[in-house]
């Protein structure tokens, strides 16, 4: 959230003047060149450090690479040689940069991107020499919202501290440089607005909401007041959350609650860890099976599970076996069209009936467990027979792997409590489980007979219902009596108003989308 005057940077790279220097100026021009290199390298490395501190390791490395280019000894000697022949340093550095860029661009696609890096860096040195060190942002001297077609990392790095209140760009996406830079600077950005930007370039003031992704040109007084209020509240909240990110969540009674992340793919692991996840309470494996015409191999699954296991090290990662039904076609599995896929052949029901689907997944999990702390969890369990059958298959896979001489790790097995039947049979299931995790989203849907996707049933899509709470209580009592941990991995686990209720019912672990983790820790700490 931000509101402030609009700033539109001048476009185009400044052309160096065609000036020659005199012999008596060579010494001082050499010095000017060296000072410019130092200034640019210093600015780049400062930006890199800021990015690293904010957790954007990959972007930080780009800047490190740029620092090395700015300080390159071969670049320096080529430029200095040209200065010796009375060429101006600002023209010389561009010319040398262009030589290197052209050479790289001629190699391949990878190197063509590096050519742009060279031009970016030498362009910065040249601009610094022309006294335009702050480039197009030199005139940005009051805190403003920056509007531009696109912004390069070096552009954003040149903005004076505190002068950018936010960015609005026509190009870019959530993952582009400008978004990452904005996050590292702690300012909002609305990127990829396209042609809509043209209409806003004449605006005097701009209000923007980065999380909702919209900007308003010349907002009225009420809007400005509302944005300012929200932006203050947001800044306060962010500061508090930053403080709680890496603390342990302990209630005033001294109960330690583990706060973990739900992952939808292996690539989300690093981010979750950064946000303070103490483990993974639900690692969905469906992503491996989506958008493809064949089944993922055991090795492919092994790699994905191992990657997350390694990222989390000793911290526990609960891998949920495949939970798809009639809503997703799997090749060679023999699904039929179903009237009610959510009440159909899915989850553990399908897995148990289809060893060619289930066994490679179990084998991959057992092997990957050697690389970290993995647990396995079965979805859609309705009675203890299913759990016993699944565990038997896991044992069979373990024996097979051992006889093949493969390395396997220890894996605890648990049940996802998401059918009312499982909650009601919790005491019996607890005897055969090392842990429970309550999937509140489906438990609500099945308990209240209310389709998760039906807009008209909003009132019944809430875990805060006496029937659901009674089942959660029953599950927790069974788990506590058996001495096993019980988590919640549905949306309720991350809702500040639900967290106190879940903990009062006996829940010992909360697992949620990574962005909710600091807030959840704060809520627990305040109990």
């Amino acid at each position, binding site marked *: 959230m931000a509101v402030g005057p609009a700033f539109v940077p001048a476009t185009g790279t400044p052309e160096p003047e065609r000036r020659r220097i005199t012999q008596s100026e060579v010494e001082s021009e050499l010095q000017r060149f060296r000072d410019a290199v130092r200034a640019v390298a210093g600015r780049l490395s400062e930006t890199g450090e800021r990015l690293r501190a904010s957790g954007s390791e990959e972007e930080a490395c780009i800047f*490190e*690479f740029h620092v*090395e*280019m700015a300080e390159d000894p071969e670049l320096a000697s080529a430029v200095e040689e040209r200065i010796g022949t009375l060429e101006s340093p600002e023209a010389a550095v561009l010319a040398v940069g262009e030589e290197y860029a052209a050479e790289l661009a001629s190699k391949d696609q*990878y*190197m063509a991107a590096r050519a742009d890096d060279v031009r970016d860096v030498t362009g910065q040195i040249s601009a610094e020499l022309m006294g335009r060190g702050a480039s197009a942002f030199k005139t940005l001297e009051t805190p403003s919202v920056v509007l531009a077609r696109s912004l390069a990392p070096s552009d954003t790095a040149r903005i004076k501290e505190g002068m950018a209140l936010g960015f609005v760009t026509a190009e870019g996406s959530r993952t582009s440089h400008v978004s990452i830079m904005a996050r590292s600077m702690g300012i909002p950005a609305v990127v990829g607005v396209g042609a809509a930007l043209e209409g806003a370039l004449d605006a005097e003031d701009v209000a923007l909401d980065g999380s909702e992704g919209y900007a308003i040109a010349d907002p009225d007084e009420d809007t400005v007041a509302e944005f300012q209020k929200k932006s203050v509240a947001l800044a306060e909240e962010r500061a508090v959350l930053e403080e709680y990110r890496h603390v342990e969540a302990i209630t005033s009674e001294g109960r330690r609650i583990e706060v973990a992340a739900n992952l939808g793919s292996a690539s989300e692991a690093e981010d979750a860890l950064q946000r303070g996840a103490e483990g993974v309470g639900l690692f969905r494996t469906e992503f491996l099976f989506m958008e493809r015409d064949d089944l993922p191999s055991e090795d492919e699954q092994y790699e994905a599970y191992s990657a997350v296991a390694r990222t989390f090290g000793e911290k526990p990662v609960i891998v949920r076996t495949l939970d798809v039904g009639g809503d997703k076609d799997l090749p060679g599995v023999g699904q039929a069209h179903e009237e009610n896929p959510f009440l159909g052949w899915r989850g553990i029901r399908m897995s148990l009936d289809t060893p060619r689907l289930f066994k490679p997944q179990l084998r991959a999990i057992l092997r990957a467990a050697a690389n970290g702390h993995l647990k396995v969890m079965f979805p859609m369990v309705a009675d203890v027979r299913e759990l016993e059958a699944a565990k038997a298959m896991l044992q069979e896979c373990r024996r097979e792997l051992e006889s093949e001489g493969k390395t396997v790790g220890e894996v605890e097995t648990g049940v996802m409590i998401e059918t009312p039947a499982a909650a009601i049979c919790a005491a019996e299931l607890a005897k055969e489980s090392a842990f429970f995790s309550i999937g509140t989203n489906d438990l609500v849907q099945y308990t209240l007979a209310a389709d998760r996707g039906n807009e008209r049933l909003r009132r019944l899509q809430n875990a805060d219902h006496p029937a659901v709470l009674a089942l959660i209580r029953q599950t927790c009592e069974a788990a506590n009596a058996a001495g096993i941990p019980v988590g919640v991995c549905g949306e309720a686990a991350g809702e500040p108003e639900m967290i106190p209720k879940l903990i009062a019912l006996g829940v010992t672990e909360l697992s949620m989308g990574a962005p909710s983790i600091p807030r959840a820790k704060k809520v627990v700490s305040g109990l």
Partner: protein
Amino acid sequence: MAERETTVGPEEGIHGRPAAQFIKAAKRFSSQVVIVKGDREVNAKSVLKITGLARKGEKITIRAEGEDAEQAVETLAELISADEH
């Protein structure tokens, strides 16, 4: 003078992050260090020269001249042959 032949490890060859880390390491040695590939010989302390010089699996030679030449070739050869940085 010391030299060592090695094989490039990083998936994308020498550029970006591996290149920056290599350069940082190279600059810690006072010796003159060069990378030789085929008939090309480049300053190992220049990121512009080493970028794109070799791809994964290609053979290069690291050669150094100076007080810490032995140590330089050993450290740098190991660094460039590792597949992760």
